């Protein structure tokens, strides 16, 4: 497959939309999945209520971005949609089940007395599984996905390998870090103290895992190495990420409300950019580029005039409005 093909402007536009949607999804659903992960590590009922309360107005809107990603991929890059969902058949299944159980648990735990422990576990387990399979999918992608005739050409359990398991663990820790930083920002009292205590451990663990993954990738992949070699400026992103994490720790020591969360987001942004530098212009690393995968121009422009100019701004404005309405500390009990 030729990688010399130049992507059209519309293809670049939709690739940009998907990149932004992925980033927004990772940050937004990341913190609420992270709170779900941390939920499993406290037994205190008042703290659990507070944790749920801090994400209640947001989590469903956050998941909307997953649908934006899926719909845009199918519509604008059908080949990538087909290869990804084929390669990650089992992870996608687990992701959907995780998200369904987690969403349902949100309601049902309030209404049930006998089964409450079960729904609480469902909330924690659903969040953790969803985070883990996302990380594992990224890891499997970094290793390269075998493609033949624009279809996935491997087995459904290929992703279950040491490296993807490592990145899966990394993302669980990363989302938990985002969740803890979110709680520092939104909660008060003992829960906030607890979150502050957790942050250094989560940040340290995540940094260790990601550093190992980064090193393994450079060791394993000549192309990733050569891309970074051609684009040495790209090394600025891991550097920014490192500085952001130092900032997270400093902000945590000073018990700053916003700094840990804002800098964790910066860390995720720099990790995302690092991946971009290593893999651009591939959408499926080493197999399919943006230009290869793009749907017909007539499809991309059909999408642009409706979804691009109208729907996406509405979803963005709605998202901003919800976060603005529910800004500040969360107070439990209506």
């Amino acid at each position, binding site marked *: 497959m030729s990688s010399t093909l130049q992507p059209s402007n519309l293809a670049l536009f939709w690739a940009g939309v998907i990149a932004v949607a992925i980033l927004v999804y990772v940050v937004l659903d990341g913190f609420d999945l992270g709170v779900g992960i941390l939920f499993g590590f406290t037994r205190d009922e008042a703290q659990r209520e507070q944790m749920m309360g801090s994400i209640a107005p947001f989590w469903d809107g956050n998941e909307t971005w997953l649908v934006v990603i899926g719909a845009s991929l199918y519509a604008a890059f059908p080949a990538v949609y087909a290869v990804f969902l084929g390669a990650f*058949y089992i992870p996608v299944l687990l992701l959907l089940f995780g998200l369904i159980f987690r969403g349902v648990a949100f309601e049902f735990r309030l209404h049930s007395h006998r089964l409450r422990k079960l729904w609480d576990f469902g909330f924690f387990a659903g969040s953790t599984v969803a985070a883990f399979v996302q990380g594992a999918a990224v890891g499997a992608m970094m290793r390269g996905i075998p493609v033949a005739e624009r279809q996935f050409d491997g087995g459904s359990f290929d992703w279950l390998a040491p490296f993807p398991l490592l990145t899966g663990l990394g993302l669980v820790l990363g989302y938990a870090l985002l969740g803890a930083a979110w709680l520092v920002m939104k909660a008060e009292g003992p829960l906030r103290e607890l979150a502050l205590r957790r942050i250094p451990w989560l940040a340290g663990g995540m940094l260790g895992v990601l550093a190992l993954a980064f090193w393994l990738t450079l060791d394993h992949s000549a192309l990733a190495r050569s891309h970074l070699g051609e684009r040495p400026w790209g090394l600025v992103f891991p550097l920014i990420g490192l500085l952001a994490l130092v900032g997270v720790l400093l902000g945590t020591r000073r018990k700053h409300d916003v700094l840990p969360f804002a800098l964790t987001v910066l860390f995720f942004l720099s990790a995302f950019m690092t991946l971009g530098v290593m893999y651009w212009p591939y959408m499926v690393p080493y197999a399919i580029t943006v230009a290869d995968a793009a749907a017909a121009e007539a499809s991309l422009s059909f999408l642009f005039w409706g979804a691009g100019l109208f729907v996406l701004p509405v979803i963005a404005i709605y998202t901003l409005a919800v976060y603005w309405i529910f800004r500040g500390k969360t107070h439990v009990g209506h």
Partner: protein
Amino acid sequence: MELDPVLLSRIQFAFVVSFHIIFPAFTIGLAAWLATLEGMHLATGRPIYRRVFEFWMKVFAVSFGMGVVTGIVMAFQFGTNWGVLAEKMGSIQGPLLGYEGFTAFMLEATFFGVMLLGRERVSPRFYLFACCMVALGTMFSSFWIMANNSWMQVPVGHAIVDGRVEPTDWWAIVAGAVMLVRWPHMLLGAFLTTGMCIIATGAWYVLRDIHRAEARLMLNWGLGLVAVLIPLQLFVGHLTGDYVHQHQPAKFAAIEARWHSEQPAREVLIAWPDEANERNLFELSVPRLGSFIASGTWDSREVGLTDFAREDRPPVLIPFFAFRIMVGMGLVMLAISWFGCWLRWRGRLERPRWFMWCAFLCFPSGFVAVLSGWFTAEVGRQPWVVYGLLRTRDAVTPSLSGGDVLISLTGYVGVYAVLMTFGMRYIYKLLRRGPAGATPPPPDATARRPMALAGEPE
């Protein structure tokens, strides 16, 4: 036994989409019903409209939520199990289904939120406007689904480049002749489904002698609506049959269980099609009627299944029976609604208890009709996934093994069983309790948290 990933993927798709369609089929009509009630309340000022509105609003919220959850699963099915379809036909199906996803979520994000929570925060006129927008939005959502499916039935407006489709005429794709018949057919089906549920709910309260005023309102509106729409639906259904006759002759022959070409053609009313021996057992048929139904003349030649190679024929049993069940449900609706209207005109609608029982027991008729209609359309399209362009067996994700699909299918059955048990229990309890005074929704209820609105189940 070798597990076939194609067959299992088809079963899985049929399973998840059949569960999903139940909710949109119900909510499209409910949204319009709610807008009507709100409009009547604003016009007449009678508080009963408001009470009935608040009651159906809760049912709507839970159904909408279930539709959203089962819909997210649908967004991934085309890629996970039908990778070749997604890749080769993606330039047309991707934008159509993508727009459906965008439409549904934009709706949820905006006017549905106002409908759920905005009663106290916006003016009554704006609230009515929001109700109308939600009703239009659900119809618009179904527009994209029908555009996609109609294109799969009769592909138009495309060219094939390097083995993949490219759109050449979007207008023909979204507003072609086939689409303009099938979309109204689906919308009317959805309205009738909701209408029968409203009738059944009213009859249930009459039988239990509770909420009598509200029950009367539901019966009057429901029976009137179904009585008017059902003849229209029979007509549009006939037009839908015309497109099948014209574009998908093999499907038409399967629906009619016509094995050999005939002139003039019989109409098989009922039979047991014997696919192995290419004949019908226990057949009951009317001479010449088949020609009339198909072509409008009494002596036309009609094509039989044996005119097609075996590998080009659809299965016969499912389209044949599903079609008859759908038509049968239509006749049931016709009988209930017209007889009910006659009773109403005579002023003794709520008196014969046997009729109230019939009306009550007919609550699933719309769902059964919608599902069997879809089974006719989809199974009848086989062996093609996109008619004439791509065969179903060539469309499946090549990397999938039968075992993989067995895992996912088992998972979906298990998860949906849990989901449905709880969801249906909520809806049942809401319906059983019936209308009450208006209660304000909890402040943290949002579009994807409809259960919060439904309140305590106990």
